[in-house]
């Protein structure tokens, strides 16, 4: 087993990985950029190394600096988390060249699966259904034009190294193609350090359903069922649930087996996710392999009871997978809502800044994977994810109710967040019915606007705070228990009675 792991990430996922390492008795090395000096993830590390200036390109995307930090601290492995360098084969290769284990598939596999185009071509050979589109990336606009004409508009432009919707654009006609290509390339470059893009047919009314897979270095492979991730804004998931309300057992088993086939065809190891689109006729298409631990992995952990990050590390260290497919069961229901620093009522504009007050929920079936604390300044340089609220309950109906009630008790003041917005989605009739696709947010824009039902009470609270806040606070500080005796003291001398 590894002795020391460098965690090449920040925020909640760096903390999640650090916790798994500690349970495996592995030392943790954290990295940080200039602006992240006070970030929460560093509190979970045994050693920390500064790796560069605040922009991601100088720090969390800086391969040389990260490898140097790992060597300096004598790490035997690097865990990349998600985003940043998680699916970058140059990074995996650099680790291999320096004798450091990359917690993920090897660079050859990564090259294949992280490259959406190459992986499409590979799985097609073993009979996995794929969406029609380009067979290679290009910078030549005429090739895009031709491919778009072949498959028919609307088409989707995608970043080959992409994930999380960055660099993705839907194009409805040839006129918009050039502009969309340019934007996609720019976003792909700034998000992934690689501007390769390609085009495929756009599937209308799709549901996004993915399967979690684990595979060891000896060819043992299991899937841990699906996650439904159709609630997305700007192609980025914000709510995920499992089991999916769209699948029946027959389809679930069939897609799980296809997912394993994809993983085996790519000789993939550790934890991975096979993404599918399910169209309105319940026909499914392979989309891509996410060669990393996913943001939404906790919902699978909640229903299967298996710690995916632990399994990922064990497999990377060369251990054999001991869990058999028939041992995996879906127990109950889980929903994840992603808490972002953004303003959903103003086109999801990011909202970095200081968290003035924070109160995170707790209770039965409630898990908060958080990367924030009160008085911390959320920096503008990175993805706006603050934390993830993961709810488990014995069935979907109860899980929805518990999620709604828990969101009401998640308080972040000072910056804009999407908490109220998430609550409005969870409450909406079509979500409750399980009847939704990836266009849910666009189609429900009006209905998801804040109703401001409690504005009058906000105004009352504001006025009370202004008129009473300061004077009452002053009184409290002065007199708390200092003049009077407490009831315990009034009782007098007392002894503990045993037996």
């Amino acid at each position, binding site marked *: 087993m590894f002795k020391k792991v460098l965690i090449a990430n920040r925020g909640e996922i760096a903390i999640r990985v650090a916790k798994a390492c500690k349970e495996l008795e592995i030392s943790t090395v954290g990295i940080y950029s200039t602006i992240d000096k006070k970030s929460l993830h560093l509190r979970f590390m045994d050693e920390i190394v500064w790796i560069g200036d605040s922009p991601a390109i100088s720090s969390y995307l800086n391969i040389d600096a990260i490898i140097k930090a790992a060597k300096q601290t004598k790490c035997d492995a690097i865990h990349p988390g998600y985003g940043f360098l998680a699916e970058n084969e140059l990074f995996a290769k650099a680790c291999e060249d320096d004798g450091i284990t990359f917690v993920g598939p090897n660079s050859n596999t990564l090259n294949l699966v992280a490259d959406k185009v190459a992986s499409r071509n590979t799985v097609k050979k073993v009979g996995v259904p794929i969406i029609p589109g380009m067979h290679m990336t290009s910078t030549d606009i005429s090739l895009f034009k031709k491919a778009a004409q072949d498959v028919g508009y609307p088409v989707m432009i995608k970043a080959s190294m992409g994930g999380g919707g960055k660099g993705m654009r839907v194009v409805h006609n040839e006129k918009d193609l050039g502009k969309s290509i340019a934007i996609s390339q720019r976003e792909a470059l700034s998000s992934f350090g690689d501007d390769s893009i390609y085009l495929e047919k756009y599937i209308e009314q799709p549901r996004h359903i993915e399967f979690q897979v684990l595979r060891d270095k000896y060819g043992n492979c299991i899937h841990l069922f699906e996650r439904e991730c159709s609630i997305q804004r700007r192609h980025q998931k914000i709510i995920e649930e499992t089991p999916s309300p769209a699948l029946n057992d027959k389809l679930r088993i069939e897609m799980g087996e296809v997912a394993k086939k994809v993983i085996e065809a790519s000789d993939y190891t550790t934890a991975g996710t096979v993404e599918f689109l399910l169209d309105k006729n319940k026909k499914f298409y392979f989309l891509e392999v996410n060669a990393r631990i996913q943001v939404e992995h906790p919902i699978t952990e909640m229903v299967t009871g298996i710690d995916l990050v632990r399994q990922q590390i064990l497999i990377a260290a060369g251990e054999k997978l001991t869990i058999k497919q028939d041992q995996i069961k879906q127990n109950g229901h889980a929903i994840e809502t992603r808490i972002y620093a953004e303003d959903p009522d103003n086109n999801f504009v990011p909202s*970095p800044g200081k968290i003035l007050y924070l*109160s995170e929920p707790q209770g039965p079936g409630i898990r908060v994977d958080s990367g924030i604390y009160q008085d911390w300044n959320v920096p503008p*340089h990175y993805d706006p994810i603050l934390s993830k609220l993961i709810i488990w309950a014995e069935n979907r109906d109860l899980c929805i109710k518990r999620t709604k009630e828990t969101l009401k008790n998640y308080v972040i003041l000072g910056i804009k967040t999407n908490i109220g917005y998430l609550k409005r989605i969870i409450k909406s009739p079509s979500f409750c019915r399980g009847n939704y696709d990836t266009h849910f947010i666009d189609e429900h824009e009006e209905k998801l606007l804040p109703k401001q039902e409690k*504005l009058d*009470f*906000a*105004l*009352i609270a*504001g*006025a009370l705070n202004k008129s009473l806040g300061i004077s009452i606070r002053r009184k409290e500080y002065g007199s708390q228990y200092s003049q009077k005796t407490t009831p315990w003291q009034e009782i007098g001398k007392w002894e503990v009675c045993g037996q």
Partner: protein
Amino acid sequence: MEYKFNFFEKTHKINLEKVDDHYKFIINEKQKYKISDVEVESNLISFKSNNKFYNIYCFSDKDKTYLSINGENYTLELEKDISTKSKSGKQQKGNSVSSPMPGLLVKVPVSVGDEVKSGETLAIVEAMKMQNELPSPRDGIVKKINGKEGEQVDALQVIVELE
């Protein structure tokens, strides 16, 4: 006592009066509330209204009061001088574009002296990996550009001014 708060570009007037053990509130000279059992702690305000009990999280920062009620957030701004504020606010809107957030100035596709149409992109700002195109508020001529491509900009920093 009277307070005026701005919320979503609207000014709300709140009158409160203490009567015996409760408060009488009148909001916007219309809606009346009887509020009792008031407790104000540093980050929590609780009270009863119409036999319902309310717990409202709160943080007060200079003129701004941040509130959370049942998962919905409200930011109230204490109104000081309504007349000058709305005037200068309007002027700002029509004659320039400013960044809605701190971030990186990615591109300024116009130059001083350019004629621009309403809705035309005057600047692209990136924060948290999201690019925002800032559209021109009206037809006009570019008077001044503050900031260079590749530079950091602050929230509400005016980037392009129109004549």
